């Protein structure tokens, strides 16, 4: 038996939208089988994971809050992936962004440095520093690739661990709260250094707006600008891109900077929004989950908005499942992995017709 992949003559919109949905359904079925093998009821798990979080106001807000970093990171990643550059290190860029922005939050603790002009500049500066931190960190694998031809997949991934350990050291050392009873965490930022909530007493913070704006801008850039055209062309046909006069080295650096900046912005939004201080673990793996979001959203900013909500659901449902069904928290990660596999298979299936040829020897 032989498996043949025949290119499909044309991609249709129905296929483009249908494939991720089929992938999601398939992943739910596989996930259900795993849960059943763990001795729990798959239907109950489905309810806890995917239905219950949608029924209550607070969990819907939580959904948007969790989706926010995923959207920001995945929109950035879509620039890299469309250009056929594989930035796997968004998690690290998220952390360095959170760190650099958070550093300003620590410095300005207790109304320091406010002087005569007040504290209005602190939060915007933190956001900018966050983006710069992520961008600079993403520039490392990009430069290594352009100068030395090093695989950005490996370098960006390994830099994640460097960033994680760096954060760990800082919050146990220089950034530690001197009055924090030796807990590994920084001071809690002043209110003026925190992202405002959109409504009194609610969970939605202003980062959600940033995520929406980022997705809309990206959609516009891809659809209308020469830069978006350049990114798509380099990914699609690198030789034609050179013929078009586009510089692939410059583009490599640019898309990594964009991707890193958005991941860093997501990091500082999380630190200045949800958490309010630096701790050894500021991300439950958003940088990696965003890779799945980017592909489930078919690298389109609008698709990413939808996909981020789906993946955010797995986080919230996963927490509920730990409590209600005593399912391990790793189940969430496992489900995300299954979903990524299904999405990739569906992606192949939209581009190629898969034929099993029985009896035809290779």
């Amino acid at each position, binding site marked *: 038996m032989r498996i043949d992949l025949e290119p499909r003559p044309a991609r249709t919109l129905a296929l483009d939208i249908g494939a991720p949905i089929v992938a999601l359904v398939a992943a739910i079925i596989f996930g259900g089988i795993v849960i059943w093998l763990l001795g729990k009821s798959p239907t109950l798990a489905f309810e806890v994971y995917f239905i219950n979080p949608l029924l209550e106001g607070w969990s819907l807000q939580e959904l948007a809050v969790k989706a926010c970093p995923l959207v920001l990171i995945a929109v950035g990643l879509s620039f890299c992936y469309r250009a056929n550059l594989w930035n796997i290190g968004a998690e690290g860029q998220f952390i360095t962004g959170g760190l650099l922005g958070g550093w300003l939050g620590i410095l300005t603790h207790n109304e320091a440095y406010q002087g005569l002009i007040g504290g209005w500049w602190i939060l915007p500066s933190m956001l900018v520093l966050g983006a710069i931190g992520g961008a600079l960190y993403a520039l490392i694998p990009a430069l290594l690739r352009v100068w030395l031809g090093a695989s950005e997949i490996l370098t960006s991934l390994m830099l994640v661990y460097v960033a994680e350990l760096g954060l760990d050291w800082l919050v146990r050392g220089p950034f530690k709260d001197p009055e924090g009873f030796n807990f590994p965490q920084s001071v809690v930022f002043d209110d003026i250094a925190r992202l405002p909530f959109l409504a009194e007493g609610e969970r939605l913070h202003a980062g959600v707006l940033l995520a929406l704006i980022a997705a809309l801008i990206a959609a516009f850039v891809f659809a209308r600008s*020469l830069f978006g055209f350049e990114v798509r062309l380099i990914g699609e046909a690198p030789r*034609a891109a050179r013929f078009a006069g586009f510089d692939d080295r410059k583009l490599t650096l640019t898309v990594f900077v964009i991707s890193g900046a958005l991941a860093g912005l997501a990091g500082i939004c999380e630190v200045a929004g949800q958490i309010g201080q630096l701790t050894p673990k500021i991300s439950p793996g958003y940088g990696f989950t965003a890779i799945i979001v980017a592909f489930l959203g078919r690298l389109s900013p609008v698709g990413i908005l939808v996909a981020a909500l789906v993946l955010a659901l797995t986080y919230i449902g996963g927490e509920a499942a730990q409590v209600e069904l005593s399912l391990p928290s790793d189940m969430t990660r496992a489900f995300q992995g299954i979903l990524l596999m299904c999405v990739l298979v569906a992606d192949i299936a939209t581009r190629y017709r898969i034929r099993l040829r029985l009896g035809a020897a290779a």
Partner: protein
Amino acid sequence: MINEREMHAAPLLSLRGIVKRFGSFTANDQISLDIHEGEAHALIGENGAGKSTLVKIIYGLLEPTEGVIAFHGQPVRLAGPEAARAQGVGMVFQHFSLFDNLTVAENIALVLPRKTPLSGLRDRIAEVADRYRMPLDPDREVWSLSAGERQRIEIARCLLQDPRLIILDEPTSVLTPQEAYALFETLDRLKDEGRALLYISHKLEEVRRLCETATILRLGRKVGSCDPRQESSRSLAALMVGSAICDIRSPATRDLGSERLTVSHLSLASEDIHGVDLDDVSLSVRCGEIFGIAGVAGNGQSEFFAALSGERLAQSHEAIRLDRLAVGKSDITERRKRGAAFVPEERNGHAAAGDFSLTGNFVLSRHATVGLISRGLIHFGKARALTAEVIATFDVRKAGEDPAARTLSGGNLQKFVVGREILSEPKILVINQPTWGVDAAAAATIRQALVDLAARGAAVLLISQDLDELFEICDRIAVMHEGRLSKAREARGVTREEIGLLMTGDGPEGSAHAH
């Protein structure tokens, strides 16, 4: 006795009522033909006439929707190429199905039947290559080979399987006249051995030289068959397109003006270890002139094209001048702004991006020169209008409003790519292999467009392996061999044989350059 005679009379291959539909589209409609042992059978027709589909059916790559395939009178169902090869069918593809990262020998080993011993394979490849005069190093990796060299692999690997019926899809498009002549001798020998040939070509002279039967396809139907030796190239072409082909109209006298494109002492080491270094290349092309560069594929033409277009920059800024202005270190966009335009050899993935719409492909090469961009945004409305103009002027046949480039046939995509550049009214056009794998009607359109462009005062540099084409439209011809360029000769004062000798490096200058 009668039975045996009938067996003998049964053709090697016969097709009866072959129909192939793709959805609502009928690519082959009731095609029947017979090929006998020792017969050279030509299959001619325009691009999109259904030749490739029919050939794929014979080679087991596609299953017919209806109809019967019989070998020696026995109907068979071909489940795959393996089954076709078991019936003795061998194929030399036009589009090479080779693995870039494997060597020549490994690529050949992959397609041999399972039990073929691999020891000594390299020697056998060398032997076949030598016998048919096709220089081929079994240890080279395919990614480093030119189109011409890749085709030699296809021919060699087909011959190694000792086929009864050999399908050749445009096999001479990358050979010198001498090499083509050697190939024909080989093919004659194969015929004498009783092997049959199914020969697909747009070069009707070759068909007349080689084949005793021709089947003509048009729009998926068989529109006739004839003995090509009894026909003229012109009458064959008329059968093929269903109407008479116009001659290229050249202006009686051309007013050659000042030098528009000047290359002086351009030397450039190849980026690719297997590539060809350019060695002291000089030429000049004047207003209104078409300057031809002949040569066998892989002798530095693609490197030269890249240096002229600015996809690779020269060492010295003065090595290349456009209208006397040095541009050797300017990039391709800079050169376009100076009035130059370029058409690379490879349509798919170089001149055009397959998954991009035609409008997108218009933006690809023209974004910097026709005011399509303001504040970083693309004026798609304007791009669509200009694309429509290219499509209308060059009669590009397409399906749908603004389809992806890869849905166009080779000839139509080439007309689009050439038209896109010509409608920019370039002062200098550098064009590489403009009619490779393009049907006769499209090729005539493209050549006429080049002649007209030169008549309007542009300098045209035409790199081609098709000597007929060069002699038809060029004013002067030079030959590129191993990265060196011969002295240019007036096209009217030089014979095909002289050019052919230069192409193999045996010309007077070839020996002068000898180490």
